[in-house]
């Protein structure tokens, strides 16, 4: 099933026969695949296929009812969302969840908080009371770590060209839809995650904004080739340009697991999307338009 891309890379994320039902709907039906470290995996499929549920389960927002999810050999499907994040999995949401009243800079700094106090991937540096005292008295060690985090946040803001940096003191609610998505991605990136989960990052973006986002993610791949990315995306053009591997889901199961080019031409995929084989030509045309 897996292709040559996956060879020789250690497995980062293992989805092991994971099932999740909502009432009578099976959103994930014994999902079973692995994501090697550093891979860019795209997950596509029609609405209701269970793509978002998959990301919700990996990030701990929803718990699977059966099966296991493992990160580097460690079982994570019973952990809290925040504990999973602290282990190096950062995510964005399908409906952008920014902190409306916080400024861009503040929002991104929230992402640095777990690194600041430690825990998860790094040794714990500050307990609640030591942090309270350090913050109250502005102790030098704490201040230095805050300053380093600020520098990191600035670096990430600048990655998005003039989209975020000049607006860094604007409150999130005042941002455009596309900028809210960028802000969410920035908040995840500032954590320098090992695994980045993107839930429809290009949704609601116009073609030029989509191209710009694609460039940013491609650039990110160049800077951090070791970062594993799992992206749910409806815009197949983005998938073709960025992903190394593409999983197509339908009704809670994986129907195709191939390279993007291979997967998107697969007749089973076309059938899942459009229902008939006859429409294959039309589907190919839609694909080309992105």
């Amino acid at each position, binding site marked *: 099933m897996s292709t040559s891309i996956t060879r020789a890379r250690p497995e980062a994320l293992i989805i092991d026969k994971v099932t999740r039902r909502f009432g009578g709907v099976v959103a994930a039906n014994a999902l079973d695949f692995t994501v090697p470290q550093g891979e860019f995996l795209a997950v596509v499929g029609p609405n209701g296929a269970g793509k978002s549920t998959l990301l919700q389960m990996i990030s701990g927002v929803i718990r699977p009812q059966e099966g296991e999810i493992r990160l580097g050999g460690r079982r994570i499907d019973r952990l809290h969302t925040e504990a999973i994040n602290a282990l190096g999995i950062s995510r964005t949401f399908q409906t952008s*969840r920014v*902190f409306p*009243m916080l400024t861009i800079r503040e929002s991104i700094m929230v992402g640095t908080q*777990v690194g600041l106090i430690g825990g998860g991937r790094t040794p714990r540096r500050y307990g609640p009371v030591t942090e*309270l005292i350090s*913050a*109250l008295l502005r102790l030098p060690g704490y201040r230095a770590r805050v300053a380093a985090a600020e520098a990191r946040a600035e670096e990430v803001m600048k990655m998005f060209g003039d989209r975020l940096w000049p607006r860094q003191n604007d*409150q999130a*609610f005042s941002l455009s839809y596309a900028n809210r998505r960028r802000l969410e991605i920035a908040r995840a990136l500032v954590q320098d995650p090992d695994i980045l989960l993107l839930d429809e990052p290009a949704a609601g973006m116009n073609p030029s904004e989509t191209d710009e986002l694609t460039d940013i993610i491609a650039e990110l791949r160049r800077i951090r080739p070791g970062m594993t990315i799992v992206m749910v995306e409806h815009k197949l053009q983005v998938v073709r340009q960025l992903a190394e591997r593409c999983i197509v889901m339908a009704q809670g199961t994986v129907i195709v697991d191939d390279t993007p080019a291979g997967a998107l031409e697969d007749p089973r995929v076309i059938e899942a999307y459009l229902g008939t084989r006859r429409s294959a030509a039309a589907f190919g045309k839609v694909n080309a338009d992105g």
Partner: protein
Amino acid sequence: MLELFLSQILNGVVIGFVYALIALGFSLVFGVANIINFAQGALLMLGAFLTFTMVRLGAPIAVAIPIAIVITTATGMLIERLALRPLQNAPYIAPLLSTLAIAIIFDAAAEMIWSAEIQAFPSPLSKYVVFVGSAYLTGVDFLIIAVSLGVMAGLMLFLSRSWMGKALRATAQDPEAATQMGINVPLMRQFSFGLAGALGALAGVLIGMYYMSVFPQMGIPYGLKGFAAALLGGLSSIPGAIVGGILLGIFESLASGYVGEGWRDVIAFSVLLAVLIVRPHGLFGNKSLDALGGASGATGGIPTTSVVASMAGATGRTKQRVLEAPLLVLLAVIALFALLPVLSGSNYLLQVGTQAAIYAVLAVSLTLLTGSAGVISIGHAAFFGVGAYAAALAGRNWGIPAEAAFLLAGIAAAVFAAVLYWPTIRLSGHTVGLATLAIGQIVYLVCLNWVDVTRGPMGIPGVQRPSLLLGIDMKSLTAQYWQALVVLAIAVIIAFAMLNSPIGRTWRAIREDRLAAHASGVPVSRYLVLVFLVSGFLAGLAGAQFAFLQNFVSPESFMIDTSIVLISMIVLGGLGNITGALIGGVLLAMLPEVLREFAEYRMVAYGAILLLLLRFRPQGLAGTR
């Protein structure tokens, strides 16, 4: 022994039927409008007092009761129209505080109209007695059971058979779909408030007959008990409300029989808390308790748990103007106020000034918790009280010098806040307000009833002020004024340091979107405990200063009224804004002094100010942060 047990059970079952009636009113409004209606108790009180008044004017009770029910029904509908419908798209704190403001206005108005005294309520049926072994049931008990069962059966039929009932249930399940089907959803919401009013009035009359008395402050405790019963039964079913009501009645009846009458309400509110924490969907319910009021869509499609986002006008994508003075300016203003004793020797002014400083500290403490971290606290007076009692007891019982008592009071209140509010971490939406209200009531009742330690309603007299500090005699009123200003300055410095640190930023992130905070790796519980500690510490300092100023501590200073005044202060100033908290705190602390002739209207004024603010200037005077 067994006889006492049996008679307590019987008493519990009977009063439990009344709780079930109140519970149904709560469930209806919660189901249809998705808010917890704190004014339910006020409607209950209104129904009882209207009946009481008409009977006193010579009307037969059988005529008075239906008229009272009709008037209360209309009042319930009016409340929905005036205080809730305008807030349909407001953040969820708005409708919650709106019903709370109405409760407090009714409560205070009733005290002015009917006096704060307990009044004898006509109960013609209580002279008929039937013995059951050594226990007995009166005619009132039978009336309660018969009326309750009749009303519940009628309500069940109405909801399942009539068009109106079906429309009501459709609205509860999916307001958008109901609208598409041609159901007038706002009318259904109003109708549910009317029904809740009718049920409340009926319950009020039955309670009046059962205890043969009524009192203006009965609204809040009975409202809370009704909610406890509804919650216990699972909020969604009529049989659930009956079972919940009866169980609650039996619990508290046993408590009053075996522990003491004073502990009756402590047990009832503890049951409420326990259910909220352990089994928030109740014994039979399947509906998850997540009352967010009008929050959804409040911010133009941005998902948020913020109590302030749309208060600040965060829908229009325009920047709001916020007045936030720098720390040094605030400290300079406090220093200017310190000159007051030099300019005027008036003891009255100093007394008022010290009070205002204490309230300002409390407002700063509360705005960190409710404004910045988004934890709606309607029990904040509890930590004020813990601080005051700790300071008083430290000097009187343990001989700790008053200077050290300050620190002790702060730490005691911080620990209490962290421990008592810990369970609220898992709660969401309106239920946090409900839980904190219950916690506030429990702490007040414990102070009132734990006579061995607190001396109960008599209070603790002779609290010694700190004696000599840096060569200044701290016993004088002038010194107390300065001391209060120093406490205020310390509170402002701490609040500023916290809000401008990563910790304060994290609090605000948790307030704005808790799920996003979790997903960003923020250990949410840890930061909520930190805000409980800091907020509790500051409230404790205020409590100690209060004890020293008054030389006396008694439970009545820490009633729910105080908590609500504090909320009015921070909403007036602008949630989460220190400058705003100081302005709101000082203004509202001075209000009763400025309007001395109208001092008795104080609570009505606070309630009205809160109500008007929520409607017309939710961002407060200085703006939310």
